Every structure is written in structure tokens, then in C-alpha cells.
């Protein structure tokens, strides 16, 4: 298992991560601060607690609003940030 990778798309860009990674981890791999969304006031928000409590990591995954830290990356997954 340890060598396996999956390929997903974050805001249209291909990102390769180790199999079993969370989408929150993939946001960091994709570069920068790992921003998941923007607040009402437009401020960038990134995963914070990593355990499904803070709700700061909400992203759109294959058309559904999900928590990035609670979702495991799957081959071909489409993730949209910034909502």
C-alpha cells in the first residue's frame, strides 16, 4: 500500500498524493497555505482542527459540500475550494 498514489483535481489542477491521504493533506500538497474556502468577509480559511470539529475545511467534492479533513482522496476526485 505505502507506495500507491492517487491522482485528483483541485480547482482543475492535477495533484498526486499518497493513497490514504485526506483531502486536507492534498490541499497542502497542492501548494501554498492549503486554503479550503473563504469566509463571508472574503478571508482565506484553512483546515484547523483536522478532526471534523472546526468546520473550517469545507470544500466542494464531486459536487457535494464535504469536510476536507474527513474525506480520503480517491482517484479522479474533483475538489473545488474557495466557496
Amino acid at each position: 500500500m505505502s507506495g500507491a498514489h492517487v491522482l485528483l483535481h483541485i480547482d482543475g489542477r492535477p495533484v498526486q498524493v499518497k493513497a490514504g491521504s485526506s483531502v486536507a493533506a492534498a490541499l497542502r500538497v497542492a501548494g501554498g497555505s492549503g486554503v479550503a474556502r473563504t469566509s463571508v468577509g472574503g478571508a482565506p480559511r484553512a483546515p484547523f482542527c483536522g478532526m471534523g470539529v472546526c468546520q473550517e475545511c469545507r470544500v466542494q467534492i464531486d459536487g457535494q459540500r464535504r469536510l476536507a479533513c474527513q474525506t480520503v482522496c480517491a482517484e479522479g476526485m474533483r475538489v473545488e475550494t474557495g466557496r
Partner: protein
Amino acid sequence: MDAEVIVIGAGIVGAACALALAQAGRRVRVLDAQCGGATGAGMGHLVVMDDNPAELALSRHSAAQWRALAPRMGAECAYSACGTLWVAANDEEMAEAERKRERLRAHGIESRLLDAAALGRAEPALRPGLAGALEVPGDGIVYAPNAARWLIAQGGGAIDVTHAKVDAIEDDGTLRLADGRRCTAAQIVLANGIEAATLCPELPIRPKKGHLLITDRYPGTVRHQLVELGYVTSAHHASGESVAFNVQPRPTGQLLVGSSRQFDTTDPAVEAPMLARMLQRAVDYLPGLAQLQAIRAWTGMRAATPDGLPLLGKHPWREKLWLAVGHEGLGVTTAPGSAHLLAALMTGAAADFDAAPYAPRGLLA
């Protein structure tokens, strides 16, 4: 500052009373334990209710005050003039909507009936097959904890807020604080919500627990505060449990979903079976809600009196003590009107409407 009046509690009711008294020229000290209360837990719906003439007088006066304050409130108060749609599920409820319109019209409150098609156009997310609705455009919503802070700030130097818990009220009106200090003033206002019964066990106030849930942001899903007309019958049972469809569009695009009512529990835990019943009721009206992501659920305690009206006025036997408690599920709406009445009684001014129905009652049993 040497206070002439001490207000116990900085929730929405205490805040409104403090401001009304400051505006009447009093120097006011607000003591707050910061232990949390209904103001931080409720929905913040500003709604004219007409179950009886006294409730209508108080909520109507209050709603008008909120509308007058709104243009000055900052964005943090999240005021929105979204109006209410009282949703009728069937012909019987539609007949009730018509009676409600007549009652409101008799008191100069604007409202209009929507038939099924008009309701579908106004709120496309509602399920088809509903009978219609009564729209009350003058209703609104507010974020009550920030509105409470804003009301206090309007008092400027005439209001001083101290972080302190009152442990006891002695017979002569002296307050014993948790830190051992003692203080008093010529007049004391008890406005600490459900905790009022801890300081004055003779008050006829019981906790009525409610669940709420908030979703992630889905702007435009719903435009009005939506309440089922059946709410009128379900919300006012004196005992037992009930749920009602009640959904509010927050200015952030989030949906705030209510509401449940339970007596005889003081446990603040979110109860999954109660939450499930409440959400099922909401999904019955708004099927798309099931696809949205919830981000938080919580509970709050309403301070319920036997007849549903707040206690506003002088305590019948306790020295210096005035009551502003028992606002149940309507205290955000009715805070300004309650404060107006109480301040008038306390300063000997003329009130805009009759204070008699709210006079402290049921205390001599």
C-alpha cells in the same frame, strides 16, 4: 460610577432595559456572570405574535422599535428585513392564515395572503402541494448577542458593565456577589433569564428547552423566515414535547433550522432523537434541506411562565426589586417593548401601552 439602578443580566432583555433606563436619565450598572443564556442560543426572529392581545401589543411595539433601530445598527448585528411567511399546509391552516390577517389588520399591521402558486414563486425550495402562506413583511431577524452589546453601547457613559455573578438577593435589596463583594442601588432589575429562578425561587418560571441547527452557506435557498402555521398550536402546549418547521435565512447564506420544545429538562445536551424529529419536520417542508451540510447543532433554555407572558414590574414584596424575566421564546423580539414598559414604571413616566397584563403574577401562591 455611583449607579442609581443595577441590572442583573446582560442578555438582550437586560441590555434593552439598561438602555431605556439610561435614556430616562439614570446611571446604570449592569452585572453579568457571563455564564451564557438564551440570547446566545436563540434564533433572533423579530416577529409579531398575536396569540392574545397582550402578546400582540408587546411584540408589535417591539417590532416597530427594532425597525427604527435597524438603520443605525452595524453589520455585526446582522439585521435583515426578510419578513415572515406563515406557511399553511392545508385548507384549514389557510383559513387560520386569513383569521390571522384579520387580527393583524385590526392592529394596523400589514400582511398579505399568498395562494399556492404565489408561495411557490416566493419560495421555490418549499415542497409542492402547500396551500399558501401569510406574508408579514415588517418582521425581521437579528443576531441577538451582538445586538445586546450594541444596545448597551448606545448608553455611552451612562451604562457601566461589570463582570460579576450575583449569588443572592437579601431581603433589604443588597446583592451578594460570588467574589464576596456586596452592593446595592435604589432600584434593581432582575433580567437574568432562566437563572432568575435561582435568585428568586418564588418566580413561576420553568425551563423550556429548544434545539437549533445551522447549515453551511447556501445563499439564496430561502428568502423569508419560514414558519409553519401549525407552530401556533404546537409551540404553546403547556407540557410535553413538540417540533415545528421554522427556517431562517441568515445574511451569511446559512440556514438556521428550528425548533423544538421540551419541558422538565435542564440538560443542555443535544438529543439525537429530538434533533432528528425537528429535522424531519423541516425536510417535510423543504426537501432540499436533506442535501445541505449542517455545521453545528446546539440547545438553549427558554424561561417560560404559565401564561406565556413575561413578568414586567415591581416584585410584590422584595425590596427595590423589579422584574424583567420570563420571555420564553420571544424575548429577542420583545426586549425593546419590555424595556420601554419597565423603564416607564420605574421612572413614573407614561407608557405607550398598558403594563397591567405583564404585572408580576403568580408569586403569592
